[in-house]
């Protein structure tokens, strides 16, 4: 069995968890294994039945009042007990902020290593082989994990969803045992960011600005451009962030976030090596820069040499027209 932890936020299943479920299903099919999903909470009364269509053969609902809010300790204790009971060959978790917080804690409890932030999972010689970026994508490792169960986190936005419409499966409710004094830290409040703002790690399209944006107020242009594109987010280079033009949560690169959107548009970004490392795995890259010698053009699929203050409004108009059709 491959067990997949399903992350929920406000009762909704995260898309990246479904991507992870899909990849588990594809690899499990090669290995002749079943796939079980696990959802944890105080009481998981309803969940998206879509989860079967997305690859789960069974769903385990792990319940305990202590699981009402997320805590790495509480969730690790609950999942650990389930893993010990089910003895899966592997546990897959989406490499979201929660996944990256939880997976290593669970793995340490199990005494096993983790393959973090994988961008490819294969079956070779009957065993799982994981590929993951290191040095923010300047290099890729292919690794095997020696211990069982294998714990891996899978990067959001990389793996396609699996789909078998109308599929059904079994539900198993389990009470999780969590000792009263075992959880010494927990989330007490979630504070939402700017309304409807998508994180760069989850966006399908990123419109990113660098030094060429010249001033903080000009990032409004990128916000408007992002608003004209479905599932788009605003990114930034380190120099734009370090100049205080936009918050560091937007930073793409080795000391920011490593991203793999379908489309990455870089405006006024020269293309420092540490920025390129963080975005080179984007499917399509567009660069707009007035300097034709800027290194960003060496990795861009499409380039426009010109003034971004003229190109951005024109692009916004064209995109609006295109999406209106």
């Amino acid at each position: 069995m491959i067990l997949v932890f399903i992350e929920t936020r406000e009762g909704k299943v995260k898309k990246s968890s479904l991507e992870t479920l899909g990849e588990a299903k594809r690899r499990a099919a090669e290995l002749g294994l079943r796939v079980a999903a696990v959802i944890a909470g105080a009481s998981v009364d309803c969940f998206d039945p879509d989860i079967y269509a997305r690859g789960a053969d069974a769903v385990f609902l792990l319940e305990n009042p202590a699981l009402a809010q997320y805590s790495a300790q509480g969730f690790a204790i609950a999942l650990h007990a389930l893993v010990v009971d089910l003895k899966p060959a592997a546990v897959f978790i989406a490499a979201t902020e929660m996944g990256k917080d939880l997976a290593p804690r669970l793995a340490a409890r199990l005494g096993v290593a983790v393959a973090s932030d994988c961008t490819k999972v294969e079956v070779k010689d009957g065993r799982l082989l994981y590929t993951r970026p290191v040095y923010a994508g300047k290099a890729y490792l292919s690794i095997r994990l020696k211990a069982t169960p294998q714990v891996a986190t899978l990067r959001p936005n990389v793996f396609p969803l699996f789909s078998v419409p109308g599929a059904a499966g079994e539900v198993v409710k389990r009470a999780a045992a969590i000792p009263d004094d075992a959880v010494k830290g927990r989330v007490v409040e979630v504070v939402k960011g700017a309304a409807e703002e998508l994180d760069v790690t989850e966006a399908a399209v990123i419109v990113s600005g660098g030094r060429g944006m010249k001033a903080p107020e000009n990032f409004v242009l990128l916000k408007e451009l992002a608003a004209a594109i479905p599932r788009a987010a605003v990114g930034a280079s380190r120099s734009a962030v370090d100049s205080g033009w936009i918050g560091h949560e937007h930073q793409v690169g080795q000391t920011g976030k490593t991203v793999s959107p379908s489309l990455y548009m870089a405006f006024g970004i020269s293309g420092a090596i540490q920025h390129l490392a963080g975005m080179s795995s984007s499917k399509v890259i567009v660069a707009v820069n007035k300097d034709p010698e800027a290194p960003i053009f060496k990795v861009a699929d499409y380039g426009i040499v010109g003034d971004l203050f003229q190109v951005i409004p024109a692009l916004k108009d064209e995109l609006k027209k295109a999406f209106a059709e």
Partner: protein
Amino acid sequence: MNILVFVKRVPDTESRIRINPQTRSIVEEGINFIISPFDEYAVEEALRLKEAKGGSVTVVTVGPDEATATLKKGLAMGADEAVLIKDDLKETYDGLRVARIIAAFVAKKHPGADLLLFGKQSVGADNSQVPSMAAELLGWPQANVVTKLEIEGGQGVARREIEGATERVAFSLPAVVSAQKGLNEPRYETLKGIMAAKRKVIPVVTLAELGLTNDDVAPQVDVVAMELPAARKAGAIIPGLPEEAAKKLVELLRQDAKVI
């Protein structure tokens, strides 16, 4: 407060990475090594906590003799003590192995520690594993990717970044916290600090001294291959006035690349 800050020696983010396919590892010649950037926020936060509440700050690294330079950086910033946990194995990309070493070090040498601070990830292995794993092995709570930290009377509250939002995490001490950019603005070393760091004797702790057997620290991660990413090719420059170029670009993105 007794604070331990765990730092790591990593290649400068400006480095171009070269790979030795035989050893399946990076070529270290010609690379400038630095303290992992996120670790600087951790050192700074430790110093600020000490300045506000008293206590001591010890910077610790797990690595070869060369990693001493990383400890000197922490000392020059103002840490009281530094310790090298000597480990000559090259990068294993195995967070559990390092977490086991750190947990054994804390249990044996600093059982009274109140807070372990880390960077949210090392810029290199990019695992984001060691803080959570060390916390689990010690049975302590954790707060990762933290941009604000308040400690008061044995309790802590951290602001932690998640996708498009932040979480407030409340925890009791002792605890593990990992730092994200935005937590503070790390100070520069002073000349006085650099001179003091030069003179400072840095104790070396061996894995055997921590009671760790070869089995305890045998890597569980088997690196089968290490490769550079497929090189991207420079594409087409779209000519014309901004309006024409924008129109052509949208057409190409829709019809050729099919990404929008």
